[in-house]
């Protein structure tokens, strides 16, 4: 019969008419991120970081810039002092290799995703911003962080975040 295929197809569209929409009205509603989401705002703990630059070495694009100096405190012998720790997120592709390479659990991926800015230089995250930022680490390559719910004000201390 001519038109049978069209009727069959229309039956499918009709069925979909009564289904709940799958879209999310973004600025008002937000889809929850998964714990392993590799997102913006890297989380960095200065007291755990030794300045070994493993992250900078494993970055495929060389977006992390680290400058170290002698640790000013003479009682600490197993780490460098950090002068510069810049992450150029404008070039970063969020592959997560830096986080995987960090042997001291000092660097984590973030959980945010709204990273639009007006200029390129403002995409470079400097050491002071990293120090001051709220710590909401993602569970990527850090399975022990699985299942932590981040409220607006949560900020994980370095003892809680480390293994």
């Amino acid at each position: 019969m001519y038109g049978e295929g069209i009727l069959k197809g229309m039956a499918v569209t009709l069925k979909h008419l009564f289904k709940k929409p799958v879209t999310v009205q973004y600025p008002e509603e937000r889809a929850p991120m998964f714990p392993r989401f590799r997102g913006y705002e890297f989380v960095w703990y200065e007291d755990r970081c030794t300045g070994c630059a493993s992250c900078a070495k494993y970055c495929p694009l060389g977006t992390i810039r680290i400058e170290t100096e002698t640790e000013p405190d003479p009682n600490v012998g197993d780490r460098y002092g950090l002068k510069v720790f810049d992450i150029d997120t404008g070039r970063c592709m969020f592959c997560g290799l830096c986080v995987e390479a960090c042997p001291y659990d000092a660097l984590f991926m973030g959980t945010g995703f709204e990273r639009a800015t007006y200029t390129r230089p403002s995409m470079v995250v400097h050491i002071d911003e990293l120090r001051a930022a709220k710590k909401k680490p993602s569970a990527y390559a850090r399975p022990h962080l699985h299942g932590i719910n981040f409220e607006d004000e949560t900020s994980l201390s370095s003892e809680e975040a480390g293994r």
Partner: protein
Amino acid sequence: MTLKTEPITVNIGPQHPSTHGVFRLRVAFDGEVIQDVEPVFGYLHRGSEKLAEERTYTQVVTLTDRLDYVAPMTSNQAYVLAVERLMGIEAPERGQYIRVMMAELMRIASHLMMIGFFLQDMGAFGTPLMYTFREREDILDLFEMVCGARITVTYMRVGGVQADLPPEFTPALERFLAKIPGQIDDLEQLLSGNEILIARTKNVGLLSAEAAINGSVTGPALRASGVDWDLRKSDPYEIYDQLEFDVPIGENGDNYDRFVLRLEEMRQSVRIVRQCKEQMPGGPHRLELPMLLRPPAGDAYGRVEAPKGELGFYLVSDGSIAPYRCAIRSPSFINLTVLRDMLIGWKLADMVTIFGSLDVNMGEVDR
């Protein structure tokens, strides 16, 4: 008196919406009939092969995501298989199961994309594409759950996968497996009986088995022509020899066969994912390997059955931390070689559908 006519050369692309990327065709028309075709590509060339020579073996995984951006998991898999062959190691069984499961989910997602865009090219504007994207979204959510990203996954590593499956993965996968067969049926019912679709696809864009073999065509485009060649069966890698599935074969090698074959392949992929979920063994998901790998000098070729055909990586090592040479055999690029023969004699409107039925991804063609 007869009118003297000359063929008209028309430039289609590279910004034409139907060319699925930046692909350009220089076509000579006699009226509406195609006389000659010259494909022009290279607009998306990023030099992945050359970049790979300056990256360590682990870092190259990030480049493979960007080859076929519709199916990054299979690109990852082909690359890590090549490195594993180079080093003479094998991933633990659980890692192999996870890899195969991800590759088959990726195949479903890639075929969904192809079907959506194919029907869109046919004039079914919007509706099928929205349906296929909705279903693909579920798969991308599963990927995000496992590895933290939807497209640029960078999930597979030499000697296994980056991370084990999270606890919330299995229930989500079960929910997905419960609804996807019905959704594939819906997709089939939606248009495959439609008279317009049948008129535009049956016996259009014929590719004979002989021409397909001569052009080194692989993947669904080859199987639609009636050739039983699937690397998962012909040269089983990882754990495919322990799984039960059928390889669907077409008859005529026309557009319709290529479209229906992909629907059937998705059903088989669902079967494979279900088996992987049931047989999933315990144990480690990854070998303990250093981040900087130094494979012994030599060469190796690793290949997988990607959604678009045989995807292979040929690696040459000189014993250092980066590959000396990384050559990529991409299925989309080689499937394009038969495009000229398939297009000649058909009309302008058929050009779009024939090209769409080949399912070519420009990221992989230009590399």
